[in-house]
């Protein structure tokens, strides 16, 4: 990423912070909150699913851990909400250690299966322990912000996205980022140059879990009430993965673009097509998987690289004929 790109990202960040000065309507701010929240989630997922190439379809575990920890530690044990949110991060880290520690030693589909299974187990626990979690009825979540709530949550989501984005940029430039890509491309090769594959995959998952848990706490706290089938559902896991893949897994900008496209499309379809919006959503996904398997940014990037390469070949051909 060039300096000019980073500057552009900084400008976008500052403009995003200024949006509430212009946009006052609560429902618009809530849509924007959702776009940024899923951008942050997509960026978090991208570290594991994109850079390290380890497909996770169970990020709802960390998301739900964040939301439920805030609700339970604060609501039932009386811990202050922000401390409870941090405890949610700790719980998510523990979940990630358990899933990654066991399944990253194996190759093949074990990790993705473990992620789905673990998230489902958490959902079933939340549903079936009404004394603790409120069960299907759900549980109240304390407010993290007071006053102009929608604006505050919007800013928090923008901030989280910025943190996730900065983390991604830093990792993609560091040795750690190269290690993750090497593991994605070929684990044997990665091992042959001395990369501890299991250790690095786990590190990526832990960072991802931290960001996801924070997003979960924000989400729960905005709605003030959560039920298992909302924050621990497979739908959440899928949506996080789809946002990243639609934009371009393994690219820096992909998850952000994916979230803008998917979340605004979902909102539009909901208004225009009523109940049929899920159908359109599905068709959109099929189209992307078939025609843009590398995602929007991945495909654009490949096109640009090809043009640059062709340009270079043409230039050198001219040089040859010029002699």
């Amino acid at each position, binding site marked *: 990423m060039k300096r000019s790109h980073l500057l552009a990202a900084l400008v976008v960040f500052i403009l995003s912070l200024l949006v509430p000065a212009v946009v006052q309507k609560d429902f618009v701010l809530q849509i924007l909150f959702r776009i940024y929240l899923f951008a942050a989630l997509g960026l978090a997922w991208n570290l594991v699913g994109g850079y390290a190439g380890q497909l996770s379809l169970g990020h709802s575990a960390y998301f739900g851990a964040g939301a439920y920890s805030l609700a339970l530690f604060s609501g039932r044990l009386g811990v202050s909400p922000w401390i409870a949110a941090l405890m949610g991060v700790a719980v998510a880290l523990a979940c990630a250690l358990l899933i990654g520690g066991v399944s990253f030693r194996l190759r093949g589909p074990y990790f993705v299966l473990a992620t789905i299974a673990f998230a489902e187990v958490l959902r079933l626990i939340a549903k079936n322990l009404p004394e603790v979690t409120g069960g299907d009825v759900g549980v109240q979540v304390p407010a993290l912000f007071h006053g102009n709530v929608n604006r505050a949550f919007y800013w928090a989501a923008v901030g989280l996205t910025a943190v996730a984005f900065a983390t991604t940029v830093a990792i993609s430039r560091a*040795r750690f980022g190269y290690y993750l890509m090497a593991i994605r*491309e070929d684990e044997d090769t990665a091992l042959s*140059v*001395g990369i501890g594959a299991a250790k690095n995959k786990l590190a990526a998952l832990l960072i991802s879990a931290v960001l996801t848990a924070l997003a979960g706490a924000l989400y729960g706290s905005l709605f003030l009430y959560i039920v298992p089938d909302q924050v621990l559902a497979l739908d959440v896991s899928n949506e996080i993965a789809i946002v990243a893949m639609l934009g371009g897994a393994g690219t820096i900008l992909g998850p952000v673009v994916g979230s803008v496209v998917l979340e605004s499309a979902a909102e539009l379809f909901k208004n225009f097509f009523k109940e049929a919006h899920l159908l359109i959503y599905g068709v959109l996904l099929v189209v992307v998987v078939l025609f843009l398997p590398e995602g929007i940014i991945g495909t654009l990037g490949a096109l640009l690289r090809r043009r640059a390469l062709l340009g270079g070949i043409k230039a050198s051909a001219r040089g040859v004929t010029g002699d």
Partner: protein
Amino acid sequence: MSLLEIDHVSKRFGGLRAINNIAFAIEENEIAFIVGPNGAGKTTLFNLITGVFHPDDGAIRFQGKDITHISPNHAARLGIGRTFQLVKPLRNLTVLENVMLGAFLHTSSASKAAEQAREVLKYLQMEKVMHFTASGLPIALLKRLEIARALATKPRLILLDEVVSGLSTSEALALAEILKKLPEWGVAAVGGVEHVMQVVMSIAHRVVVLDHGTQIAEGKPGEVVRMPAVIEAYLGAKYKELGL
């Protein structure tokens, strides 16, 4: 003390004796070749040295240290680099990035890794394709990329699994000229080849011949090709009597 000691190593896969009681040693800065037909056990031997598999019997020592039960990434850290017979490039990364991953073993700085990678690529005469993604390279360059990546880890020993197979004779000889200079990098090399004897004869200091997992000869290349057991394994028993 030899750089690498293979001390009566055996490995079975079920009923198949892939490697049977093999023993030889490699000295510092030496270029050795393990020669043998397809299925002789060359790749298995490399996998045993790099910890992909572990021997059933015997021991492997590297710089005097027992590495019999090492893990693959630990082997690389100790200074054993390897290439893969079926090339395993990091396809979506550029050639430079592929080699940088080797260099990252000794530096965490991306710019230093890139600098070291460029040096290695220059040695392998690959500077021109540095910014191409690995997926677009022809096989001759992919074989070189394997060597470049391994060499960038600054190994003391590099295992070259069939680096010349699939290359034309002229490509193979050009690569041999490059490999000949490996000792200048302070690297000993063990190559495995099936049949490109021209390359072996021109650059090897030592040759080990395997047949069905058994070591049938070891010595200087000129001596080994005259040994009756080698002629029998390669050409059949009747040529042995001709005293080829």
